């Protein structure tokens, strides 16, 4: 029955003169997600975005796709009446009420919009005449203009449009309107969620994964590619940089105190991530860290890691409990992939008793033990990067 969707957005309205940029980004992103589903027409008009569906389309599938587009506050499935003649309009709206609301003991209000000022009726007149028609056709209905249970909107343009309920969107802002960031993607539960959350604020994503063969397997890497694919359903296409980290890890293992291994390793991950971030014109790094979750995520550890970063590090999960993170992972469908039991490079050499409250000066001293070869090794890791385009 529905032939179109009317998209509403919230925060974009605040953006003043840049507003059109946000609207265009939103329109383009919607086009991108529904393109694989068929020949939809996405148009921008008068502060809304309108999606017209092809003759045969899958309603559920379309709703699901639109729900993944950041920047949408809500959207309404719309019935299209191929006429603006009053009699057709009355009949169409009446049929709509009959089909959508089999229980007709509710209160309602008609709202009207007309696109062309030369339409013979003004909006208030459309409202009152349509209200009267509906009361006559369905005597059980009652009008309540202040707090109705159903708000029935009728829009008259070249055709007529009727809608009365809204499906919540994900909120946030259209991807690409707030720059780009580099996500450190590990294969665990947290980092995909972190990427999703930052992207929701309109940020495009690139990602970097640290691969440590033979300690981590091809399947561990495939898992990260799968996760990147899943979050790209929200963030749009992204580049995934796969860095071979084995030699650096083993070098740290040889030179530094074992209990500091994870912290020092994280410092080099940040440095390498930052290199690719600059190349990709990113404005910051994104990690899935949460205070105190593991030894390398205490406030002291985070400070020791940040010590090497020149870019801001965004940690959207910093104050989240694990269960809250899991809830989001389940919602965005990354959880099942994240819990596949493949070892990632953070756990392979993890000390039985790692430092929990590292002192930055001590860590810097240990880090200095790597001076001889580390720059060259980083250079090699950068040169050997594998770039995977995730779409």
């Amino acid at each position: 029955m529905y032939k179109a969707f009317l998209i509403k957005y919230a925060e974009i309205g605040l953006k003043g003169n840049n507003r059109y940029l946000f609207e265009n980004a939103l329109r383009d992103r919607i086009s991108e997600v529904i393109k694989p589903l068929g020949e939809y027409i996405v148009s921008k008009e008068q502060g809304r975005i309108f999606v017209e569906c092809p003759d045969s389309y899958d309603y559920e599938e379309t709703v699901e796709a639109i729900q993944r587009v950041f920047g949408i506050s809500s959207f309404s499935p719309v019935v299209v009446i191929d006429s603006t003649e009053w009699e057709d309009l009355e009949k169409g709206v009446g049929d709509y009420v009959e089909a959508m609301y089999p229980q007709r003991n509710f209160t309602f209000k008609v709202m009207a919009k007309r696109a062309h000022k030369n339409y013979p009726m003004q909006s208030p007149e459309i409202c009152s005449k349509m209200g009267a028609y509906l009361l006559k056709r369905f005597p059980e209905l009652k009008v309540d203009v202040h707090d109705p249970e159903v708000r029935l909107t009728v829009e008259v343009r070249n055709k007529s449009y009727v809608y009365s309920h809204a499906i919540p969107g994900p909120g946030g802002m259209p991807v690409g309107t707030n720059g780009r960031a580099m996500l450190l993607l590990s294969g665990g539960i947290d980092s995909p969620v972190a990427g999703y959350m930052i992207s929701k604020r309109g940020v495009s994503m690139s990602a970097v994964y640290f691969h440590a063969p033979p300690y981590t397997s091809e399947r561990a890497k495939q898992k990260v590619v799968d996760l990147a694919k899943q979050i790209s359903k929200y963030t749009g296409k992204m580049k995934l940089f796969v860095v071979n980290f084995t030699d650096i890890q083993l070098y740290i293992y040889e030179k530094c105190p074992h209990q500091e291994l994870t912290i020092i390793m994280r410092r080099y991950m940040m440095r390498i991530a930052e290199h690719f971030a600059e190349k990709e014109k990113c404005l910051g790094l994104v990690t899935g860290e949460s205070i105190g979750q593991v030894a390398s995520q205490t406030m002291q550890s985070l400070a020791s890691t940040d010590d090497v970063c020149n870019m801001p590090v965004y940690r959207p999960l910093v104050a989240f409990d694990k269960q809250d993170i899991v809830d989001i992972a389940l919602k965005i469908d990354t959880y099942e992939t994240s819990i596949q039991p493949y070892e990632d490079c953070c756990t392979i050499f993890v000390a039985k008793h790692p430092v929990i409250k590292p002192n930055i000066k001590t860590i810097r001293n240990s880090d200095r033990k790597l001076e001889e070869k580390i720059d060259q090794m980083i250079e090699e890791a950068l040169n050997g990067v594998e770039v995977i385009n995730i779409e």
Partner: protein
Amino acid sequence: MEAYLDNSATTKITDKVRNIMEKALWEDYGNPSSMHMMGVIAERYMKDAASNIADCLKILPKEIIFTSGGTESNNLALIGYALANHRRGKHIITSSIEHPSVHEPLLFLSENGFDLEFAPVDSTGRVIKDKLYEAINDDTLMVSLMYVNNEIGAVQDIEEIAKEIKSIKKDIVLHVDGVQAFGKYRIYPKRLGIDLLSISGHKIHGPKGIGALYVGDHIRLKPITFGGGHQKGLRSGTENVPAIAGLGQAVLELYEDFDDKIQKMYELKQYFIREISKLEGVTINGLPVETTKEFEMEYIKMTAPHIISVSLEGIRSEVLLHALEERGIYISAGSACSSNNPAPSATLSAIGMPKELMDSTIRISLSDINTKEEIDYALEQIGDIVPYLRKFIRK
């Protein structure tokens, strides 16, 4: 150079297998149940395959049921026999080192009114026969044993066990999981006293997704798959003709130069064991306790020709596996463990392997198409990697 040394996981099909499968898939694609000529031609592939298998096992073609592989054969044998004969007894005996495709259906039966008992094995993976015989009682319905263990290559003395259990209780039925043994031993079920025998295509250079179950003429089974009544109602579903043809062809090639092929595998096995034992901290699993540092052939021949289980102290098998894979060498980890998935192997536990070694156990499995050059390459690479990996361990 490449060396595929994971032939107990699966094998490469032969050229002739590929040819016959292509023909069955592409030209003679009829449904063997169809009444027209296309159906008759398709049916002929099945008849030929059944007769090849029958000749190989010295049984009758009608005693063959085609299945989707070893797992289904084991399920059909165990559940099918138990359901059809539960009035004759509820007690089932198996060993503690069976493959999950035997272990799990038996657990299912034990949850559904059957009594399951496990016969223990010794440190080489051989069933302790006295314990097995003692376990038999008036209610014992069947015994299920694997001929060759897939993880350590232990071989059971099926003929003697069959004779003995049937002398204790005449009507005990013996099911043998022959998936790893088929093609490595001349198995004649009727002479050995095997009533139900499971085999699989892809362990013998045939295709995946196909297997067979020998069901002795005197054995009554109930189906576990229902439908159009194919294969005497025991296994409904249109037969996988190309795979059946491939299995039939692989079986046909099994006994070509059989003794030479087996001898070659034993020699490669002995050579590999001797050489790898020169490294420090190496244990070869599953060999008879009498075996000395010479690894005499008479003892090696008490185990399967193709399976070698090695524990390397201080090495994580999964890491070694990935390091070897980077060099084109493909093996298995004895017990795939990772930090978040501790899954100890039942076989390795049953032979009393210390926990710290389980994570350090690899399996090399040979085929007669492997060469000494490949073995030398693998040995050289393992010798190269092991000391390096031992430098970097979790502290």
